[in-house]
């Protein structure tokens, strides 16, 4: 077990739903015969975190930081390049498809795009019932009852059961996606940007519904999004990712009251606040440049190219995660200086 595991030792094993240790996922960009020409995208590079049972863990970061890849690797849509995925005490990193089956029932996923994630040739009944059939949960009349139940749970009606996805609006489709995820009675739901394709007024509906479902069914969420204000709203703890690495992990209130990492600070400051007076009074931190390419990133802090506080050490040595406050973890060489911590 690694040393810096975010206070994992304070939590009893039985309270942990999911633990990720040193997770890596690399993609080959071009399979050149010459080794020197091969390029590797380090989408996720040594990620550690855990999620307690019944908790919502938020994962935020900009596009290309590897947050979606993390979600997809956990549910093993991608084969991890390295590291361990431990679900409810069982190492599932190297299980075969068949061996994964019981865990797939316990882990479900809600996808970003409700237009692309539902098969247009299947009716709502088929879409929701597919998981029920695969895991042989209900048959015949019971199955149909179960599907109606699920539709009601997500705020749709029984008469919607025989329609096709194109007959629904974006928000309704996302509800179908959620019903599909809930059909197999999962324990962990990975929500990959579940609301970013929806309109503002519909986003609130879906977020409230996810909240209610968590209370009712005791679900655990991994909530992946780039919208920090929504993530803060829904999460208990938040991890901030940048180019495949975790930069900061802490309880969500702490992240907003007391962000320590220069990247988190910039990210928070960049969110446009729907409050004009507040906006006028605030001085925002504008980051220079773009996100660095994740192809062969080399040594050093991944954020160093855009960091205002970058020193030589930042470019040369990759910072380790350390505990700044109780439950507040950060990967930065200079966070103490920057924030005036003695």
């Amino acid at each position, binding site marked *: 077990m690694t040393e810096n595991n975010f206070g994992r030792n304070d939590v009893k094993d039985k309270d942990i739903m999911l633990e990720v240790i040193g997770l890596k996922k690399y993609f080959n960009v071009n399979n050149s015969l010459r080794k020197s020409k091969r390029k590797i995208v380090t989408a996720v590079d040594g990620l550690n975190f855990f999620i307690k049972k019944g908790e919502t863990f938020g994962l935020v970061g*900009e*596009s290309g930081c590897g947050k979606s890849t993390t979600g997809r690797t956990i549910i093993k849509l991608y084969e991890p390049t390295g590291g361990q995925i431990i679900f409810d005490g069982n190492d599932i990193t190297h299980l075969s498809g068949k061996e994964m089956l019981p865990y797939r029932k316990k882990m479900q996923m809600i996808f970003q795009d409700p237009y692309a994630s539902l098969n247009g040739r299947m009716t709502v009944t088929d879409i929701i019932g597919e998981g029920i059939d695969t895991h042989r949960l209900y048959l015949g009349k019971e199955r149909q009852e179960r599907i109606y139940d699920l539709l009601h749970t997500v705020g749709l009606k029984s008469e919607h059961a025989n329609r096709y996805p194109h007959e629904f*609006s974006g*928000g*309704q489709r996302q509800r179908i996606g959620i019903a599909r995820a809930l059909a197999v009675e999962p324990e962990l739901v990975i929500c990959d940007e579940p609301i970013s394709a929806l*309109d*503002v*007024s*519909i*986003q*609130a*509906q879906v*977020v*409230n519904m996810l*909240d209610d479902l968590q209370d009712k069914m005791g679900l655990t969420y991994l909530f992946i999004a*780039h919208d*920090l*204000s*929504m993530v*803060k*709203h829904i999460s208990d703890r938040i991890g901030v990712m940048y180019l495949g690495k975790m930069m900061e992990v802490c309880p969500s*209130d702490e992240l*907003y*009251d007391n962000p320590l990492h220069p990247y988190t600070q*910039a*990210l928070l*400051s*960049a*969110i*446009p*606040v*729907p*409050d*004009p*007076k507040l*906006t006028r009074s605030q001085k*925002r931190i*504008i*980051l220079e440049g*773009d*996100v660095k390419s994740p192809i062969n990133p080399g040594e050093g802090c991944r954020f160093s190219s855009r960091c205002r506080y970058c020193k030589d050490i930042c470019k040369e040595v990759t910072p380790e995660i350390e505990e700044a406050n109780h439950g507040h973890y950060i990967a930065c060489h200079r966070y103490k200086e920057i924030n005036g911590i003695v």
Partner: protein
Amino acid sequence: MGKILEVNNLKTSFFTHLGEVQAVRGSSFSMNEGDILGIVGESGSGKSVTAMSIINLIEDPGKIKEGSVIFNGKDLTKLTESELTEIRGSEIAMIFQDPMTSLNPVFTIKNLMTEVILRHTDMSKKEAIAHAIKMLDLVGIPHPETRINAYPHQFSGGMRQRVMIATALSCDPKLLIADEPTTALDVTIQAQILELLLKLKDETNTSIIIITHDLGVIAEVCTDIIVMYGGMMMEKGTVDEIFYEPNHPYTNGLHNSVPHIVSGKRDRLIPIKGSPPDLMKPPTGCPFSPRCPHAMQICLEEAAPMFKLSDTHTSACWLLHEDAPQVKGYTKGGKQDD
């Protein structure tokens, strides 16, 4: 400061095989020189079509059915295509949402930019290139002399949006229409682009219309705001009026459905029930009435006129009518605007 744009009772429809989609059903507004006007609304509210109608970029099967767009004393809806071409790009410029698809991939940035400059000014080719480099420098692209020879795919999303802005501003337009200019970008890049737009506005005194669904973006950059819903204007006012004295149930609903980042409290969000209307069969009355918590009989039968709350603030809601029941948070007795 003079009036730069006046839109009167604009109605735009799309005549599809399935029937007429009434995308914009009577927008009227005006803007002064140097204003930054934000048009906010959900998808399908008609905000983009309103902006497209201003420079008549409505393509078949769409058509501007009624209304006028007075820009600099000319009615743009009455101009011929060739007269419009003269205005587009030189006097009114537009930037689009998706920088990945709105730049032609087979041309270099030099081609793309000089095409616009040569079309609208009498600069020589050499001068046009020099001008393009100057514009790229202005929007913060490093090494513009070499980067100008690059193709769009060699730029990142944020950089492409900068190229778009540079191109749009290269002929010194009086009005810039930005259709969701930052929606496709990450928050840190969005902050850069918004800052850039504000800086350029101060330097060039261009008036800007920003179309967005993000209330945060609006709060940040705009001076005036129009809230649209179901193809109609719901409320119009200065940024402070819309954010601190909203007088329309839809505006209130929008405010309540976004989480406020101010820490500590974790209030439950108050979503707007139901979903936006189908513009093929728009509701007869106020388009928001089926989702409105305060809907009255008249709301279902007749769309509300614009009630005047101040010189700058108007709202289309029957709650503001003298005879309406008093509802907390809504100022009554506003004079009817004509």
